[in-house]
């Protein structure tokens, strides 16, 4: 069991989650974070911390594709455990629908 980062993280990337995660299982892409499913201990601390409500338990229905995306990119993007400034336009993208298709970047972020 794990938590997964979903659509609304894209281009918001607030990073509040990385500070509270006890096991540092967040990985950073250019405009999104993901959780490494094999490192997450399912504690759920990150879920309510996300200002964009982008983190869910993988037991919720319909998250299979997000679980796959989290697993895939957690193995290639750099680890992030220290919060930085969110993107300047984060608020403008908070709540925009279907960001994956339009805005997702497979490029790695800078990490810690």
């Amino acid at each position, binding site marked *: *069991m794990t938590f997964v980062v979903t659509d609304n993280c894209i281009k918001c990337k607030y990073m509040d989650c990385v*500070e*509270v995660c006890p*096991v*540092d299982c967040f990985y950073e892409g250019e405009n999104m974070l993901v959780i490494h499913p*094999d490192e997450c*201990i399912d*504690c759920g601390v990150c879920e309510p*911390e996300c200002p964009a409500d982008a983190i869910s338990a993988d037991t919720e229905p319909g998250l299979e594709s997000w679980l796959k995306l989290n697993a895939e990119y957690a193995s290639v993007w750099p680890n992030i*455990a220290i919060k930085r400034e969110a993107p300047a336009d984060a608020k403008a993208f908070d709540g925009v629908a279907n960001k994956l298709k339009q805005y997702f970047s497979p490029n790695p972020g800078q990490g810690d």
Partner: protein
Amino acid sequence: MIAAAGKLDHVSEDAIRQLVDAFYVKVRVDPELAPIFARAIPGDWQPHLTRMYAFWSSLMLATGRYKGNPVAKHLVIPGMKPELFARWLALFDATCGELFDHATSEAFRIKAERIAESLRLALFYRPDRPWPPEPTP
């Protein structure tokens, strides 16, 4: 604050210390768990207790005080068995019940169960074997 029944009705750093201290007193005399823990922590227990204060503070108060890799730590403990998690959880839940009111105790139990299952899967789940695992002889 102390609830009517003399039990703590919310989580605080002090409450976490009380819980961790009381729990490990039970662990250290438990026939199933004590030998495993004694091998994993052969010397001074205080560093472990201090780490556990930080762990539960991170989980219950979102303080970010603990940063570690519990999966890796558990992987190297000799004598780990899948069924030990149930014993751990029973003792932990009993300790929570002694200290906290029902709602607070439940909050700890839910977190503990999720994490225990996650560690159990990380340590013992193999795609080619039945799950949940058969008890080890």
